């Protein structure tokens, strides 16, 4: 069965390469065009309220989350259905992460962290649909996520611990002479957190999608030999599926780590 599929795919690729090759003879690779923000209903001007492809794919993410978590669990089965199993799995996964990484008292932040995770993971996977728009590939989006996390955690820290929260930067276990230097490093690393969160997520997703597009451009230019880049795309796509989940996981677990700092600032 797999072998048959392989030959059919190969034949399709060869035929399509022969038929369509002349039109795309030039090497026309525009890997970044897929990230362009466009107004949905025409017009070049993109105001803050204009419904754009960002809006469309974010709303699709909301829809997917609704279908998975709300409709999936609608039966409330003691023995879960498939969708309900996934919903329970996601719930248990994030709940346990919050509890284990950030501590038991962090459980009240669980809905916020679940929101973050579900948005990122859903947007990443929706972005893997061919011809789709990946909202998490934009620094504006991941930057807002990172800044929201950063601000929320800083405020939480100061509300819970007041000035003592600054003890996070004062490494009391180090020799006294080293402490100011360490404090400087700690402060810098604290403020780099949102930047790294933002760039890690958007950078990974953007790079992966751009590479896929570059291979696709090769496939268009190589004619009959295009099966090579298409196989490369298949392999890379599998990697991107992994990255889509791992980046959401990394973003969430780092949020939990930072939240733990805010709840228990002592070293």
């Amino acid at each position: 069965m797999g072998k048959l599929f392989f030959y059919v795919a190969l034949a399709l690729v060869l035929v399509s390469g022969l038929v369509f090759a002349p039109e795309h003879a030039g090497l026309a690779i525009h890997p970044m065009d897929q990230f362009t923000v466009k107004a949905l209903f025409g017009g070049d001007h993109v105001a803050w309220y204009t419904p754009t492809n960002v809006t469309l794919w974010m709303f699709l993410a909301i829809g997917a989350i609704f279908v998975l978590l709300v409709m999936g669990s609608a039966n409330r089965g003691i023995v879960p259905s498939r969708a309900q199993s996934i919903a329970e799995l996601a719930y248990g996964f994030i709940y346990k992460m919050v509890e284990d990484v950030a501590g038991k008292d962090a459980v009240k932040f669980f809905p916020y962290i679940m929101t973050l995770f579900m948005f990122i993971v859903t947007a990443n996977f929706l972005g893997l649909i061919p011809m789709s728009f990946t909202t998490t590939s934009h620094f504006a989006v991941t930057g807002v996520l990172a800044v929201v996390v950063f601000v929320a955690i800083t405020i939480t820290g100061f509300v819970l611990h007041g000035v003592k929260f600054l003890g996070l930067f004062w490494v009391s276990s180090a020799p006294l002479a080293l402490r100011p230097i360490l404090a400087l490093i700690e402060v810098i690393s604290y403020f780099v957190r949102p930047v790294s969160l933002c760039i890690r997520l958007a950078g990974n997703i953007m790079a992966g999608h751009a590479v896929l597009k570059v291979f696709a451009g090769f496939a268009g230019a190589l004619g009959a030999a295009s099966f090579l880049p298409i196989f490369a795309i298949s392999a890379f796509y599998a990697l991107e599926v992994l990255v889509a989940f791992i980046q959401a996981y990394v973003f969430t677990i780092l949020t939990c780590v930072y939240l733990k700092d805010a709840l228990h600032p002592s070293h």
Partner: protein
Amino acid sequence: MASNTHDAGHGAADAAHGAADAAAHGSSGMPQLDFSTYGNQIWWLLVTLVVIYLILSRVALPRIAAILNERQGTITNDLAAAEDLKAKAVEAENAYNKALADARAEAQRIAAETRAEIQAEVDEAIAKADAEIAAKTAESETAIAEIRATALDNVKLVASDTASALVEALGGKDDTKLIAAAVAERTEG
């Protein structure tokens, strides 16, 4: 993708549009750094996050938590019920054993009681029989003593008659008093 939609066949207007598009986005190279769309993205992101948060915190998370709790509760209840039934089974077995032991003890008690009753009846019967035997023995002895006494008297009578007849036959004088005294002396001796 954009280049596909602006194919040459679509005419000059499209070509001009494509050029404008390229001028707007192509110059920076990365749409990610096109700050004119940031307001739009941030606005829709905030809307999305709020909507997802509301869906999760109002509906999805409480429901899933309830489902998980219910399952945990069901499992715990089932285990408790099983434990309960097991305890009941053990209790029933104990009750059965106790009933068995009670019955055995009762049976032994009844047997012992019956044995004692029978023993008592037998003893009574034996005592009664002994008493009757003793009474009959005493009666018999009285009768024997009477008979013996009668026999002695008869012996005396016979002896004195015989003695007086002998005395008469020998020609002596029948002295009744003397003979009686002699007979009494002999029979007493």
